[in-house]
């Protein structure tokens, strides 16, 4: 059913699956030990957040969860490559990106609990709300980038989407607009090889990064499980964008280790051994091995991070359970920014109706 798939030979890699640092002519990057340790920490914490969320969904505390298991390097690496003023446009699965933008764990979970359709302040975090309609946000990213240009600011955008999304008209129109306006946008495609049950061949018969050239800007494939390479390639593309050299498409070749969402049953469409193969390419393990071998981090450090993760798990579990329920007024709040007669009328109606039960005056 599925033959084993690996990144193209051209894919940028700085860290082998075995945790060995390899040089690269274009994308070599030298990161401080602090940054390297932080990347590790980020990935561990994001994974714990993800695992806890999956568990909470099983317990009925969340309506749904879209796990990012296996994609931590792609998300954290690109998210951490952004400058503070850059702006991210993530999808429902990009918890590592939201994390890197400083979105609080409970803000990330709020939508999945069903108390909001957003969760955080997009302007303060410089991170758009998760987008669910596949591909829409690619155009938002380009428009935002055009705004950066109009402002003459040195900022850039990262627009995230999946391999499946590359089939949508919106993503391709985003390529056109970004190219024509030379917008400061990095298109970051996480090719996790699956769009729900459909494998990547259903969406392209050539590697996704090759799509870019035909729209007039560079495309590059990166080992999406190699956080260093992802960070290097994204930082490079962001620099290009900020300095007026226009868009780049990055294809981060990775793998969705978990189900599409907690509603999904991947055993219906893929073999378990495919997952096993990718377990050997785990993004966290490979950085851990590298850190340990290089003496950048030791067991004590790993234990601290583990402990932090445990604390995060507690915070998440408790926080989710005690998340305030939205009030029924929230149904009508912020539908419009300015006064609207129907909102007032229907708000009154609903209040009166609900009150009729409180009074014991119901039908």
């Amino acid at each position, binding site marked *: 059913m599925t033959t084993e798939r690996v990144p193209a030979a051209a894919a940028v890699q700085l860290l082998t699956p075995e945790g060995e640092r390899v040089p690269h002519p274009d994308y070599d990057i030298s990161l401080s030990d602090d940054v390297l340790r932080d990347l590790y920490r980020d990935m561990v914490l994001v994974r714990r957040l993800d695992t806890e969320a999956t568990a909470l969904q099983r317990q009925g505390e969340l309506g749904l969860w879209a796990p990012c298991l296996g994609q931590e390097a792609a998300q954290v690496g690109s998210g951490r490559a952004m400058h503070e003023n850059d702006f991210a446009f993530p999808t429902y699965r990009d918890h590592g990106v939201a994390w890197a933008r400083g979105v609080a764990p409970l803000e990330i979970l709020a939508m999945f609990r069903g108390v909001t359709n957003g969760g955080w302040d997009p302007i303060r975090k410089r991170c758009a709300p998760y987008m669910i*309609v596949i591909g829409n946000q690619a155009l938002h990213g380009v428009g935002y980038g055009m705004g950066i240009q109009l402002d003459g600011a040195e900022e850039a955008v990262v627009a995230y989407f999946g391999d499946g999304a590359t089939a949508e008209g919106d993503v391709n129109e985003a390529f056109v607009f970004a190219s024509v306006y030379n917008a400061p946008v990095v298109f970051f495609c996480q090719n996790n090889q699956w769009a729900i049950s459909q494998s990547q061949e259903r969406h392209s018969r050539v590697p996704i990064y090759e799509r870019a050239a035909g729209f007039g800007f560079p495309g590059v494939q990166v080992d999406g499980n190699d956080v260093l390479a992802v960070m290097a390639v994204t930082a490079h593309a962001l620099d290009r964008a900020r300095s007026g050299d226009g868009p780049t498409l990055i294809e981060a070749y990775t793998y969705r280790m978990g189900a599409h969402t907690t509603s999904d049953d991947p055993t219906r469409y893929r073999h378990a051994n495919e997952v096993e193969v990718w377990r050997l390419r785990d993004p966290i393990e490979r950085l851990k091995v590298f850190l340990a071998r290089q003496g950048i981090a030791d067991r004590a450090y790993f234990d601290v991070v583990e402990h932090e993760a445990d604390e995060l798990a507690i915070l998440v579990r408790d926080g989710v359970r005690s998340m305030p329920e939205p009030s029924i007024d929230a149904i009508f709040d912020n539908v419009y920014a300015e006064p609207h007669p129907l909102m007032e009328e229907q708000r009154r109606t609903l209040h009166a109706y609900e009150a009729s039960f409180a009074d014991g005056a119901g039908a």
Partner: protein
Amino acid sequence: MTQLTMAKAITAGLRKAMEDDPKVVLFGEDIGRLGGVFRVTDGLQKDFGEHRVMDSPLAESGIVGTAVGLAMRGYRPVVEIQFDGFVYPAFDQIVSQVAKMHRRTEGLLMMPIVVRIPYGGGIGAVEHHSESPEAYFTHTAGLRVLSPSDPQAAYLTIQQAIACDDPVVYFEPKRRYWDKGDVDLSIDATDLAQVPGPWRARLVRRGTDVTVACYGPMVRTCLEAAEASADVSLEVIDLQSLSPLDMDTVVSSVERTGRLVVVHEATANGGLGAEVATRVTERCFYSLEAPVLRVAGFDVPYPPSRLEEHFLPNLDRVLDAVDRAMAF
């Protein structure tokens, strides 16, 4: 008679239609090996092959646009839109092409396309997964729109939709997918001498005081309301065909009861309720004892799931409207 869920009844109807006509092909995201996210196409790819049950790329305009081409080639494509909120990328192809091609070619090309859309709320989903966009399609000339309310109706109408030479947008009430009911699989859905066609409303419960018109997921809600209504006798009509509307059935009921409440999940403003109300009022002006009242979603984007119980019409809100109609 077999006990089937609505989802399985639709599967059975699709299977029958595919057996009856080799030109019927299924097309959509994840409908093959996975059987669709609601498993409605479960097993069909295995039995009919990958060429008749095709996983499509993730692009709704592409799905509907290629269905137009398949129809021009003589096929009868049945496409699945994964959720209500994802039909909009295909809106252009549906409104400008699917609905107009037959007219444009003066009848020379037919568009026997069925667009299946699981719709409506009540399943605790995230944004875009609980919408009721049917009014966009009922307002579009050239389309027909159906919504079944129980397994037997689903089994028959999906086949009739496929057999119809016009395009049909077929709204499946997703929160009723798992409701079971008796289904007679031996009925020949397309033998219109034996069974009524799908383009009519169904009187699903007799009553005398107030007519309640509803469709899809709200039929069960309204039947429950009718059961719960002690003093007021409710007549419940399942519209089933949202376009064309079968007004005769509604009008003849209202002529008897003198009162009408229309119920749907879709937002009120510009929803189907307004059309039903306007036509009934025109035809029953002198028999109406009260204005037609609507019970519908509030005019807001579908709220986060923890609020949907307050948003969705339920038994109590139906009875509240019935009371108001009686008190008028």
